[in-house]
């Protein structure tokens, strides 16, 4: 399979760049022409290979991923809007994509020697996100969209992998903790629940009972992240001692979110990576600018 690399400069000047630079003008002028030589000019950078017979959305080690071409997209520290990331802690993200006409899936790999999968006081988690436009054509602003031009975001968090295994919270952060009487020791569950206010208020981040490590989000700009109460995105991440490899997939129809990811249309995709031990969180993240994204036609 061919490997296509775009440079950091290309990414930063890429289609949909923030500010006055129009995505359409750049699509003709820069990025696409600089894509690896094996990909003719004008062709997308991330290509979702077609595969029938199921997509391994929860198995990042599956052989099926070898069928997809790998693209390496450069990551930059987010310094467009506060809160900013002062320096980058990871250089790039390796991306493969598959689809079968019903499910679109990505496999994402980045270097991070330390696993950060518990949230605590100034302790943050490793995470990765895929951002897609809700409509085909020129992508919205890279700043997670803008008012009137939303984006569809899928985020995997290492913490949520631990949630699925029932291994988060105080007892995991401090294994030798000794609890005094707690509300759930002495109160009926419905009353005790009120003492976990975030959970009682329905904050999706506060829930520990979850069915997937992938959160789906729509946003119309930085600070507007809005959780979608659905669990039809699946995924799984594994750490091999030096890197994370995360697979995630979701229905390509994107009902209630945006236009279906049809192979015949022009799409873009952007990414973000958080390194927990470097206090990455929220806007303090690494991002990869929009790159063209194409879904291969059915074989």
């Amino acid at each position, binding site marked *: 399979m061919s490997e296509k690399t775009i440079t950091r400069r290309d990414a930063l000047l890429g289609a949909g760049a923030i500010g006055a630079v129009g995505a359409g003008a750049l699509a003709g002028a820069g990025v696409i022409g600089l894509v690896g030589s094996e990909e003719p000019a004008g062709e997308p950078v991330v290509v979702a290979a077609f595969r029938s017979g199921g997509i391994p959305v929860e198995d990042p080690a599956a052989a099926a991923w070898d069928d997809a071409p790998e693209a390496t997209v450069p990551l930059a520290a987010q310094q467009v809007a*506060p*809160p900013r990331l002062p320096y980058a802690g990871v250089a790039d993200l390796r991306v493969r994509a598959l689809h079968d006409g019903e499910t679109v899936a990505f496999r994402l790999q980045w270097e991070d020697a330390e696993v950060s999968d518990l949230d605590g*006081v100034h302790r943050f988690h490793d995470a990765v996100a895929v951002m897609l436009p809700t409509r085909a054509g020129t992508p919205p602003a890279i700043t997670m969209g803008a008012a009137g031009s939303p984006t569809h975001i899928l985020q995997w968090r290492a913490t949520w992998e631990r949630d699925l295994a029932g291994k988060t919270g105080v007892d995991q952060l401090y294994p030798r903790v000794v*609890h005094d009487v707690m509300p759930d020791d002495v109160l009926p569950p419905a009353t005790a629940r009120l003492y*976990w206010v975030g959970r009682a208020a329905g904050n999706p981040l*506060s829930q520990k009972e979850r069915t997937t490590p992938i959160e789906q989000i729509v946003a119309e700009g930085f600070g507007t992240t809005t959780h979608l109460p659905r669990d039809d995105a699946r995924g799984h991440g594994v750490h091999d001692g030096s890197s994370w490899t995360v697979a995630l997939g979701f229905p390509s129809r994107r009902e209630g979110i945006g236009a279906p990811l049809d192979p015949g249309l022009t799409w873009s995709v952007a990414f973000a990576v958080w390194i927990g031990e470097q206090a990455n969180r*929220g806007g303090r993240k690494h991002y990869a600018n929009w790159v063209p994204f194409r879904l291969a036609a059915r074989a």
Partner: protein
Amino acid sequence: MPRVSNWQLGRDMEYPYEGSRPKRQFCMIMDTNKCIACQSCTIACKSTWTWGKGQEYMLWNNIETKPFGFYPTGWDVNVLDRLSEQSWDGDTYAGKTLFEAAPDGERVLGWTPDEEDWNYPNIGEDEPTGDADTVPYLEDAPHSMMWMYYLQRICNHCTYPACVAACPREAIYKRPEDGVVLVDQERCRGYQECLTACPYKKTMFNLETRVSEKCIGCYPKLEQGLQTQCTTACIGRLRLTNYLSRPDEIDPRKPADYLVHVKRIALPLYPQLGLEPNVYYVPPVHVPVDYLTQMFGPGVEQAIATYRNAKDDPELLGLLMLFGSTERIIDTFDVKDGVARGYDEEGKEIVAVPLREPTFVRPLEFATELAGEPATGFRHNT
């Protein structure tokens, strides 16, 4: 960046949002001279709001011994160190606030405590400075006099909160009706920007729900016209939950307005940081003025003089005696004929406290003759 009016600084200043003062501002007055650090307030708060799993380390209210007590460790000295030396020009602040001194790309000059810094809420407890040559923590203590005092700390429900300024999701808000600052528990995504931004370190991260929480000013009590849990549990009767009027609507009949704006004996905590904090302290009378000026601003000497004179100022004395006298929030007060009275918003009397309790002195002969004994002295418990 918008400019807002900060009366504590005597000037306008930069703030990320347009100024919008609440209708009236929740505030608390603390008379530091009366505190014995019994932590009744801390326990009242803890057992009401933060006894859930994930809140183990949280003390929305704490009492710390100054100058060596901190929760979290070193909170104020770290912030002051980062802000570096600044100055006042009379009652006008000539230095930079935390918003004006923010580094490029940040909204607030912040400091992030380490996880461990939250683990020792009683560190330095009851330690005086001692002799400058033998002070345990500081090589260059500012003076050699023996002193320490207790500082009562809750969220300052600032007029210009740094937590609000720093939250990228606008998940923290200030209630227009009473100025109480709250974290929207549904909207917060646990970025902890507020933990770095708040110089008073009064937002905290819940380890189970993974979002930030903070002192809520006991707003369910406020909404019933009641003072906060920490106030009503205070056995030293040194706290007063009250409302401060807008600076252009000061009413001397209202307790907080009288103490803060008329008598000026209650001063804000580190006003130079620029947040217009709304917990006001009667400074301790025995502590060196330079230290207190750094902590409470330029009004310290006058405040101490006025406080020392309270015995000859029935109105001030009467109001101080209304502290801890009722669970209700006192809207207005007066002192007449040796009695201090507090009234609710309808003008109805809710409490009356005499400035002097009636005293009866038993004659020596009375005590002893009744007992059939020679007049050698008072007898008790017989």
